[in-house]
């Protein structure tokens, strides 16, 4: 125990800097008080209407229902927080984890069709990866989006801003034409025009990157991947482009989620990179030029060999190891691009 008991401490995420007893008791007291306040206010509000229906205070209407909702939320938050705090104090982390696992197992047993053994081993499910068969190889991998959201947001913003600017320009021109010029509005058009210019330029850059180089399709010979084995890959690049370089690799990332204050942050680092080898005679080998035409897409056959001592995919609640097939290209006259396709690596011995 600390020499001097620290009454005040900071809560850093789920960790407390002060004496845990003070923190736990204070949190339990806070949630208990919230629960009591909720019960008291709900009882008062409802009882008032029952015993004094002619009273003008808290008559059934907007205010009454607002009080009922607020009091009920206090009860729910207070009760949940109090029970969680008490269970965290009374039960060891291992006992809590065992109870949670047992409840999850029971839930999965009831929900038919869920591959429970995979969840128990903390491995990601294969279900979303194996539902699309390939044309050449067993499975066609799903592209992990990430380019679409900025494109949509940029389109919306550019459209809204340019529409507003057009209306302001029209108003300004009308004012000038009618002989009553609004110089403030006219001056305001200059910074608004600058914003419009940069927004439009940003939109066309994104559009060029998004639409210029066509979609990429990746197929794989088998899933899940196992350490120590080799797999064939088929990459098909559509659109019209000429590439200086096109790399295909298996990349592993570590992902950790943590609380910083009231924010929930996720950090990701690359932890492994395994290059795919192009099959002899394929377009990617030697000095052959990599060209994709609308009538004749660029097709690449390659294989990837996984080492024995690689970490498997792992899916925890806050931490994860994810593996992706990454296609990275440097095209002539187009910005470079990088597209990723999630895969799953299981440890040996998993059926």
């Amino acid at each position, binding site marked *: 125990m600390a020499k001097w008991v620290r009454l005040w401490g900071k809560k850093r995420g789920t960790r407390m800097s002060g004496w845990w007893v003070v923190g736990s008791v204070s949190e339990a007291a806070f949630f208990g008080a919230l629960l009591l306040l909720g019960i008291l206010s709900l009882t008062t509000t409802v009882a008032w209407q029952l015993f004094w229906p002619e009273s003008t205070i808290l008559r059934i209407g907007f205010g009454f229902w607002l009080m009922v909702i607020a009091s009920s939320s206090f009860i729910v938050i207070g009760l949940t927080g109090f029970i969680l705090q008490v269970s965290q104090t009374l039960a060891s982390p291992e006992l809590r984890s065992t109870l949670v696992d047992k409840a999850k197992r029971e839930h999965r047993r009831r929900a038919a069709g869920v591959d429970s053994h995979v969840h128990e081993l903390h491995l990601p499910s294969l279900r979303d990866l194996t539902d699309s068969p390939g044309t050449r190889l067993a499975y066609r991998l799903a592209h992990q989006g990430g380019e679409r959201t900025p494109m949509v947001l940029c389109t919306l913003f550019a459209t809204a801003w340019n529409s507003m600017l057009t209306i302001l320009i029209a108003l300004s021109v009308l004012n000038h034409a009618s002989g009553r010029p609004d110089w403030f509005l006219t001056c305001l058009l200059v910074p608004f025009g600058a914003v419009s210019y940069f927004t439009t330029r940003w939109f066309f850059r994104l559009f060029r990157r998004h639409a210029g180089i066509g979609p990429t399709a990746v197929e794989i010979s088998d899933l899940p991947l196992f350490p120590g084995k080799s797999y064939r890959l088929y990459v098909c690049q559509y659109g019209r482009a000429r590439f200086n370089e096109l790399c295909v690799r298996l990349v592993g990332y570590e992902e950790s989620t943590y609380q910083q204050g009231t924010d929930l942050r996720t950090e990701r680092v690359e932890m492994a990179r395994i290059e795919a080898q192009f099959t002899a005679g394929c377009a990617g080998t030697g000095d052959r030029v990599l060209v994709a035409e609308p009538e004749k897409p660029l097709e690449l056959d390659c294989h990837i060999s996984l080492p024995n*001592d690689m*970490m498997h995919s792992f899916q925890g609640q806050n931490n994860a190891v994810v593996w992706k097939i990454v296609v990275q290209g440097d095209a002539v006259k187009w910005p470079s691009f990088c597209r990723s396709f999630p895969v799953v690596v299981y440890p040996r011995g998993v059926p």
Partner: protein
Amino acid sequence: MAIVLPKFPSRRVSARRSLAARTEPALGLRLLTLQHALEPGETLDFEFCIQRVSADLIDHLEISVGWYTEGKGSEDRGVLFFKSMSRNELSQIPLTNSHRLETVLPSSPLSYEGRLFKLRWCIRLRLFLSDGRQISAEHPFYLGHLTVEV
């Protein structure tokens, strides 16, 4: 054998405190396999003993085998084996003798030392005393033979 003893302060302690520290309970935990790196599917054999405490001072004992993460992210935890022994159960066995337990290790998740987080496996004993105190001991082991990086 991992034995948990009380932490003694660097400065001189009073005779009363010293006596109290000497009578503090100790937990012994030992892995029965020769190496601390085990393969998935292997049986984990271990034994434990409790010293310097009588069964009537114990509330209950928890024995678990599981993994946890440590690092930048919030902690994840998984329990493979869990056994709780009540005071009555403990009073029927000689506490100072070694008690052997075993469990079969799963194929995943393997021990891992990454940049953002580490995944560690351990055997853990938690002794809950009647006066509310809690004493724990853990013995780490390695599941699989992964290197830090590929």
